[in-house]
């Protein structure tokens, strides 16, 4: 069946992003101009965002192999938003990068396109291609400052393990295909019925391994801290926010779409993984003195919490996932934003060690306020967005009566509080004569500064008055297929 008009309109955001990527590439070929490329990228992303909001009213639309429904649009909007933030941060970050700067924006656009495809896929092929289109540019972005020893190491580690995970994913898909003979999720769900056969199960298992790696579920989380630590600022920001959101949305779609996933023992497996994720993620970060590794571990922990939504699967689950993802992304973007703004590609690697941040408040009050708010939000203190997320997850757990998971969340967030507080208080301690890492004086004006400040305000606003966000997410949930 060929692509009809409505299909094209539905795919408009994706098309716009790819078009932007290509125009950026042509732009690089014509004349290398950093500001020009950045504005072009922003234009492309904003256009896609506008297109997305335009087709908002007409969702859901069935496109061959893809479905543009509420969930896809929500995830798409989040990914585009995160990409915009990354562009703003990258601009400030790459200003002083000696090598070629424009490729980063191209890779970013490709990754954003990949994320959107992944979020909207209802077919194994698009799932696979979306995942690869998301990961491939990421290898380049992570190893972008390859002259920097740590960035190269992060790139290699992520490449190797991600490729292996893709292989697992593929083999899983092959097994599911072998079992059912169908590649589209609805078909697979139809064949599976209530209890998938053994090949199907093995396929689902390997699928879980492949996707689990990207979302750093516990047994597959070991790469996260090293990659976050080594990667250049904007790349790590994108990896922590957009890529995880997209992959989690796919996992969510898999769980909601295929009843096979609702089976009791699979719920038990997911619960075990969730519990492990919460505890291991928080425990590893306990005495962490490197801020980027700390944020890496916190992302492991947060996706441990988020898995609870997968375990429950019905009732509040979809809405909780939407809200939690939004609040998590906003907080992580703000935190990584500050880290990126403070570090420069050539200051001996990114500024991550906590002693760089000691006493930052007494020189840069606003920047520290942003980092404090984001850490508080990650810790889930009231009047920040993170609290709304934690409240939702706890409500979900209590409503579904999963007392083990609820206990895990409580213990996890208490342990989590310890290292968030430890990192936060370091900002305010006065250490005379320490080597100071200063954000470039006019950071406030710079695009990145504005964005980070906006994010911090957003975090507080969502904490104080979360109703618009919740209304938006519940609106989305209404017309999600499957």
């Amino acid at each position, binding site marked *: 069946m060929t692509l009809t008009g409505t299909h094209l309109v539905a795919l408009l955001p994706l098309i716009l992003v790819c078009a932007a990527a290509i125009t950026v590439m042509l732009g690089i070929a014509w004349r290398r101009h950093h500001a020009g490329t950045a504005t072009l990228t922003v234009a492309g992303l904003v256009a896609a965002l506008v297109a997305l909001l335009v087709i908002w009213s007409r969702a859901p639309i069935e496109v061959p192999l893809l479905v543009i429904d509420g969930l896809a649009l929500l995830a798409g909007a989040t990914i585009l938003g995160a990409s915009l933030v990354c562009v703003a941060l990258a601009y400030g970050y790459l200003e002083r990068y000696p090598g070629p700067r424009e490729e980063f924006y191209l890779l970013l656009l490709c990754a954003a396109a990949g994320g959107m495809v992944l979020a909207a896929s209802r077919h194994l092929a698009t799932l696979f291609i979306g995942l690869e289109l998301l990961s491939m540019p990421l290898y380049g972005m992570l190893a972008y400052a390859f002259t920097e020893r740590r960035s190269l190491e992060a790139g290699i580690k992520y490449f190797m393990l991600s490729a292996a995970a893709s292989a697992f994913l593929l083999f899983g898909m092959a097994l599911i295909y072998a079992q059912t003979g169908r590649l589209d999720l609805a078909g697979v769900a139809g064949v599976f019925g209530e209890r998938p056969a053994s090949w199907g199960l093995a396929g689902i298992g390997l699928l879980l391994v492949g996707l689990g790696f990207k979302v750093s579920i516990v047994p597959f989380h070991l790469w996260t801290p090293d990659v976050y630590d080594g990667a250049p600022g904007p790349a790590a920001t994108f990896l922590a926010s957009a890529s995880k959101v997209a992959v989690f949305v796919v996992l969510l779609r898999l769980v909601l779409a295929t009843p096979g996933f609702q089976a009791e023992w699979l719920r038990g497996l997911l619960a075990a993984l969730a519990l492990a994720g919460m505890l291991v993620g928080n425990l590893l970060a306990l005495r962490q003195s490197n801020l980027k590794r700390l944020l890496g571990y916190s992302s492991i922990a947060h996706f441990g919490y988020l898995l609870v939504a997968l375990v429950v699967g019905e009732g509040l689950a979809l809405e909780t996932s939407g809200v939690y993802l939004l609040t998590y992304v906003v907080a992580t973007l703000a935190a990584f934003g500050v880290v990126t703004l403070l570090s420069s590609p050539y200051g001996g690697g990114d500024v991550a060690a906590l002693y760089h941040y000691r006493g930052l408040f007494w020189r840069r009050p606003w920047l520290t306020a942003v980092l404090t708010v984001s850490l*508080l939000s990650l810790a889930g203190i009231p009047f920040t967005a993170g609290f709304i997320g934690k409240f939702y997850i*706890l409500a979900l757990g*209590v409503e579904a009566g999963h007392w083990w998971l609820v206990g895990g969340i409580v213990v996890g967030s208490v342990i989590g509080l310890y290292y968030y507080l430890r990192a936060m208080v370091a900002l305010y301690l006065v250490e005379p004569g320490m080597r100071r890492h200063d954000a470039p004086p006019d950071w406030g004006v710079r695009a990145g500064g504005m964005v980070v400040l906006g994010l911090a305000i957003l975090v507080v606003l969502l904490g104080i008055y979360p109703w618009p966000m919740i209304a938006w997410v519940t609106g989305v949930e209404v017309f999600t297929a499957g």
Partner: protein
Amino acid sequence: MALIWLILIPFLGGLACWQGERWGDGVPRWIALGSMLLVLLITLGLWWQGDYRWPAGAESGVVPWALEWRAPWIPRFGIEVHLALDGLSLVLVALSALLGVLAVLCSWHEIRRRVGFFHLNLLWILVGVVGVFLAVDLFLFFAFWEMMLVPMYFLIALWGHSSATGRSRIGAATKFFLYTQASGLLMLVSILGLVFAHRAATGELTFSYAALRETPLSDEVAMWLMLGFFLAFAVKLPVVPFHGWLPDAHAQAPTAGSVDLAGILLKTGAYGLLRFALPLFPEASQAIAPLAMGLGLVGIVYGALLACGQQDIKRFIAYTSISHMGFVLIGIYAGTELALQGVVVLLVAHAFSTSALFILSGQLHERLHTRDLGEMGGLWGRLGSLPAFMLCFVVASLGMPGTLNFVGEFMILFGSFPVAPWVVAIASAGLVLAAIYSLLLMQRVHYGPPRSESSLADLDGREYAMLLGLLALVLVLGLYPQPLLDTAGPAMQEVQRLFDDAATPSPTTMPLGDS
């Protein structure tokens, strides 16, 4: 409308102080003092014109608030910003405002570094506490409950005065935060459990206090939910097994921090028990009452024993307040109207006397530059009128008749005797222990051979006025506590009525029927 201003003024005041720092150190202090006085005036105004007698003909179902302010917040969950004021919360808000003023006054010269940010934190603690006392929507209550920890954490971690490395300061602040946060989360789980039980029973999803009070719960579920609440308030009270954070926090906190911590934050625990744990789960509270009273006893004895052994004066006073809170716990779970009224009086009395003792220890620290009791001794003649004030407040904390502490303590004991005679008998041994640690404190600091004859700085006008004001309050209210009792009266009668209904199973099957 005044209610929302009670929260906004300290909030905006805090921000103004932070920015006011540019124009010199004095500005934030005056702004903070101004906003706190404003809050105090509003509260006293409310007290003056509001009547808190029981409005005639109010049937038991609806909860009669003297003043209310509602605004929708998250309709999805039926959460609304619902502030309400009744006798009990008015007394405690007034107390918080007063202690806020004192906290600002007593750190006039003590805080030198980053005065603006200090006063921001100080005022935002007030925001949290006033919010806790006024919030009647459980979600809002929890939000304020956790929110008040952050500024106190910063206060202790950044302006505490422990060893140069600041290691123990941050350790104490983190311990304070973690203890309360962990138990707070358990309370959140209980709140959610209650809300979903309510939805299962009545189909409406709401967080409002009045609605949730009508939830019919099976005993087993009610017990678990009540334990969640009880644990959170027990950590804050503090009840002995969970008291670990209080001495450390006090030892490291600056004077203003200690005044706030002892004066107000401990009261939120007791307020929580009175407002939420008892009325929401009367049967479960009735079942746990003996255990709670036992814990109260352990608290009294343990607090007294440990107080005598302390070397740091602020840890000493911290343990004494643990002992006092033991009485509060007994009073709350005795459930008679007399005991509950006694609890309110003792809370106010403890706030006055313990804050005064902390202010005095702060002044001692300013003059002797040490908090170690070993280096004090024989200060009677050397400090002008400070020892006299300290004598008065030590005598108050001893429970000397004529002071408010005595009225509170004895009302609790008189009220609890019919319910649990043996508990009260052992608790009155606490009177003896109170005498031991109070006089020990007095002797170690002021009596005995003086170390040197040089006389130190006497109290200046500000300090003299503060202490005299507090002393006047303790003595005058000690002899004429009726205004305090009339204000908190109706609220306490309501709690007592609910608590008694649970004790005598009402004929209808509904455990909480409107019979």
